[in-house]
């Protein structure tokens, strides 16, 4: 079959422009697939390796205070491989060069370097010297953020006293790949750092000699995590345990898991779209090719080539295009994947870099490309080879035209001939026109999908940080304080208003579902933290019930009016049934709120407060910071402005990258579809258009007919694309809905405008290219050919 193969190759070369457009679209699909999934694979591998090498724990638990002698009993629990007791405390930090206070988490480590759970990777410097006071290892993110060098020091407010911490080493830990403090959504490496300090010194500072307040465990392979956690809770209950948690509830671990999940989505959604477009284009091009080669097919059949042989001949061309697209996409995707993995590795500061080409991913990409290409064109090829040779050799009957809808209307006399020709042509092949239109609409939709998140983010910031949270600072106390402490805060410089907070760790039970929840008790008449529903209306705090964020209600499958069993995880650990009064809207976290006084009643305590909301005069912030750094019972300060900024920075950065890729992809698709439609239209109509030129139509007039058709399709695609874009965005919002945060569906006008603009430009450029060819139409040659 060598001669037939040569025909295939030469025919492909003849339509190389269109074939290349399809290869580009297909390689975009394969590229995103390979890039995302290879990165996913590598990220997983890197994380797993990191966790394993540095013994990241499986179970975590906090207590108020327990003797070290308890640790062996924990280790002896069935299912436990190893247990590591330690001291973990949050303190206020005074960092040179920064006005506002930062929060430092101090974690105890053995005086000499031995393998421990959640082990440290020393990036720079050395281990602490137990004989020298105040030596610490600091997390790399914090160190980089403040450009700390070996020997630099930071002041910590420990138990009311300022203590100097000297940095002797920079470390990484699998426990703090991402450093997020408290209920924040995003890391703030400037204002939250992790420090590791010798056990003895830390114990002495916090009166914890011979004791621990934190313990982590690793499990034996066959262990039942849940069972171990229950036993651990039992054992630690007398020591003020707040309930054990596992990796799934670990902030850093979950952050990365969410990221991995999103990579997976991207690795599946984008390629699906691209493949669909590529297959559509292949179908159009091949249908056209086979139709043009009608007589050649007939001759081949006349000479005894079977349908199968002829069909395979055309499918070979399809396969060749698919393979080129797959190979190009795989190569590009692999390189991009490597870069992306690098970026992630740097961002997460993995001490291990494991980029691995995943053979199954590459194989799948190739297989799917081939399958999609063949499946999409099979029908067209079959139709062509089925045609009886005698019929195929007869010239195609003139295309069936009917008076179009325009002709039948009263407008027909008003419009120029060109317009009528355009409308008739579109009506003649409505399905083909619809598919081209759909392709262009898809490009618009993709652009909207890639850009709308900015609008949503702006809405979140507006809602969460301006409408709902009116405070400037949130202050946390080392130990619960009385109302007087809160009142005293109002005397600090710049403080306009202070409202108390009582936060309590609990576990909610509803039906068979259970969840750790932080309950926040606030003043019902408070002005600094307002709970809003989806319509941005204030939801009043009930006297005795709970307000839940709608995400939490969804996770527990509970509705307003129903009773939730609240198990308090501290103090006397009472268990009570509390009604859910209403739901509020929150875009981050899964929180529950109560009237502060109701919470006191629930906890069977007096006026114990764990923190306060402050509103502050803008120009006295620095003064206040200085004062807060000196206030002994304050353990941490969360600054809203900083949260907003870090939110914007992190998210905006990601979005910028995503938007760039989306614009690129959408342009490829738009150009691919428009260019192909244009070229095929040109080929089909050359004869007619040449005839018009001979009659006396100008170049401009025949351009109008050909490009007019494309213009109509593009314009018709706009409303369809806008609707599709909205639907895609809605779909994406569902996909981005995680426990940590969710995004509302908000699309701004400029987003729609941008999408339309890009596609119009792409269409115009393609149109111009085709116009070039039209201008150089060889009239005589075209008229001589039979088709």
């Amino acid at each position, binding site marked *: *079959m*060598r*001669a*037939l193969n*040569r*025909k295939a190759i*030469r*025919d492909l070369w*003849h339509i190389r422009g269109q074939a290349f457009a399809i290869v580009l679209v297909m390689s975009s699909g394969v590229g995103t697939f390979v890039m995302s999934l290879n990165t996913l694979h590598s990220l997983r591998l890197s994380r797993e390796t990191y966790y394993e090498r540095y013994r990241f724990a499986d179970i975590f638990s906090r207590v108020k205070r327990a003797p070290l002698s308890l640790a062996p009993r924990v280790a002896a629990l069935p299912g436990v491989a190893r247990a590591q007791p330690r001291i973990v405390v949050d303190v206020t930090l005074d960092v040179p060069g920064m006005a506002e206070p930062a929060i430092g988490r101090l974690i105890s480590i053995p005086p000499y370097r031995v393998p421990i759970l959640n082990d440290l990777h020393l990036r720079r410097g050395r281990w602490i010297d137990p004989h020298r006071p105040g030596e610490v290892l600091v997390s790399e993110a914090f160190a980089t953020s403040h450009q700390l060098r070996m020997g630099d020091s930071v002041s910590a407010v420990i138990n009311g006293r300022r203590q100097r911490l000297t940095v002797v080493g920079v470390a990484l830990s699998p426990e703090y790949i991402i450093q997020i403090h408290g209920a924040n959504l995003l890391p703030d490496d400037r204002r939250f750092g992790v420090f590791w300090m010798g056990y003895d010194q830390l114990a002495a500072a916090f009166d914890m000699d011979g004791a621990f307040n934190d313990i982590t465990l690793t499990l034996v392979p066959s262990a039942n995590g849940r069972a171990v956690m229950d036993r651990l809770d039992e054992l630690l209950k007398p020591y003020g345990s707040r309930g054990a948690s596992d990796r799934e509830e670990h902030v850093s671990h979950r952050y990365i898991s969410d990221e991995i999940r999103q990579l997976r989505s991207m690795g599946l959604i984008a390629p699906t779209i691209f493949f669909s477009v590529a297959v559509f284009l292949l179908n159009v091009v091949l249908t056209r090719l086979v139709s043009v080669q009608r*007589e*050649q097919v*007939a*001759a*081949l*059949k*006349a*000479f*005894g*080539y*079977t*349908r199968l*042989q002829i069909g395979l001949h055309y499918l070979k061309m399809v396969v060749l295009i698919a393979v080129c697209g797959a190979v190009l996409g795989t190569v590009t995707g692999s390189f991009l994947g490597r870069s992306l993995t690098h970026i992630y590795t740097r961002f997460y500061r993995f001490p291990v870099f494991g980029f691995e080409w995943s053979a199954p991913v590459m194989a799948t990409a190739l297989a799917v490309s081939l399958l999609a290409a063949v499946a999409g064109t099979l029908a067209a090829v079959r139709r062509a080879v089925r045609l*009886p*040779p*005698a*019929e195929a*050799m*007869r010239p195609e*009957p*003139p295309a*069936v035209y009917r008076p179009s809808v325009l002709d039948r209307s009263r407008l027909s006399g008003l419009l120029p001939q060109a317009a009528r020709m355009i409308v008739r042509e579109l009506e003649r092949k409505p399905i083909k026109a619809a598919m081209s239109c759909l392709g262009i609409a898809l490009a618009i939709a993709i652009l909207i999908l890639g850009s709308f998140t900015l609008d949503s983010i702006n809405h979140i910031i507006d809602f969460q940080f301006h409408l709902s949270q009116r405070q400037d600072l949130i202050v946390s106390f080392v130990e619960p304080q009385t109302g007087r402490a809160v009142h005293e805060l109002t005397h600090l410089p710049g403080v306009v208003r202070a409202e108390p907070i009582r936060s309590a760790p609990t576990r909610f039970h509803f039906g068979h579902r259970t969840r750790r929840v932080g309950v926040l008790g606030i003043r019902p008449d408070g002005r600094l933290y307002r709970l809003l529903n989806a319509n941005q209306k204030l939801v009043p705090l009930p006297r005795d019930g709970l307000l839940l964020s709608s995400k939490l209600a969804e996770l527990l499958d509970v509705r307003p009016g129903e009773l939730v069993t609240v198990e308090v995880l501290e103090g006397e650990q009472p268990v009570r049934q509390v009604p859910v009064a209403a739901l509020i809207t929150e875009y981050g976290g899964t929180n529950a709120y109560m009237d502060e006084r109701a919470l006191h009643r629930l906890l069977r305590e007096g006026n114990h407060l764990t923190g306060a909301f402050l509103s502050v005069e803008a120009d006295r912030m620095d003064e206040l910071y200085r004062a807060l750094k000196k206030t002994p019972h304050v353990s941490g300060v969360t600054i809203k402005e900083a949260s907003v900024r870090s939110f914007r920075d992190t998210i905006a950065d990601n979005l910028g990258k995503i938007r760039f890729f989306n614009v690129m992809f959408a342009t490829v698709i738009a150009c691919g579809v428009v260019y192909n439609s244009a070229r095929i239209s040109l080929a089909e109509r050359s004869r007619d258009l040449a005839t018009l030129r001979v009659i006396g139509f100008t170049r401009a007039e025949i351009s109008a007919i050909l490009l007019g058709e494309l213009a109509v399709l593009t314009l018709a695609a706009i409303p369809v694309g806008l609707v599709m874009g909205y639907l895609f965005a809605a779909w994406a919002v569902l996909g981005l809905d995680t426990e940590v945060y969710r995004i509302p569906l908000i699309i701004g006008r400029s987003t729609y405008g941008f999408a339309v603009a890009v596609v119009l430009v792409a269409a115009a450029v393609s149109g111009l290219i085709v116009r070039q060819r039209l201008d150089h139409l060889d009239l005589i040659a075209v008229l001589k050919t*039979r088709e």
Partner: protein
Amino acid sequence: MEENPSARFPEREIVFRARGVNKVYHVGEVDVHALRGVDLDLRAGEFLVLLGPSGSGKSTLLNILGGLDVPTSGKVSYLDHELTAFDDAALTRFRREHVGFVFQFYNLIPSLTARENVALITEIARDPMDPREALRLVGLADRMDHFPSQLSGGEQQRIAIARAIAKRPDVLLCDEPTGALDVHTGVVVLEAIERINRELRTTTAVITHNSVIGNMADRVVHLSDGRVTHVAENGRKATASELIW
């Protein structure tokens, strides 16, 4: 009405036998009755011309004989095979093994050279000639590596003839082979066909509307409006070079 077909070559066996062949086909929205009850025999090695004006059903008849098309009703057999009972696969095999076609518009593959166009056929034939041999037979060995776009109409048609005979078919069917050519080139093409019929003894049927060409045939079958009007035998066959139109 036909004369006794065995009169001229009583010893030659009947290769094709058509009885009561009707063909109706649909073009766009129109029905065309191409053949109405045609009876015809073709004998081994003879040179037959099917003559008639356009629309008389000549091409349709040829296509049916060659297994490119199936009649709406009637029977056609080749030797002892009943073609009308064949399915598509069997017809394809039949064409591959026994029939060579030459079409009015050459139907060469434009993206292949002359030699490759012939090779296309020899690659699936059981006992083919070398493509170069076939091209030599039609006098175009020196144009082997040219593409159809680089060849004149007559040359293209001769390539088509080379392609048709390269597989040593039992039957050569030519549909208006000179229809698109000028007189001189037409004669050259007819000479090639004549040579093949003579030297390879291939049963040959040529369709034309040009009655002069009928002079080089053994028999001329006249068709009009889908029916055989009469069959004439030529006492003396003219050579192609003697034809003038």
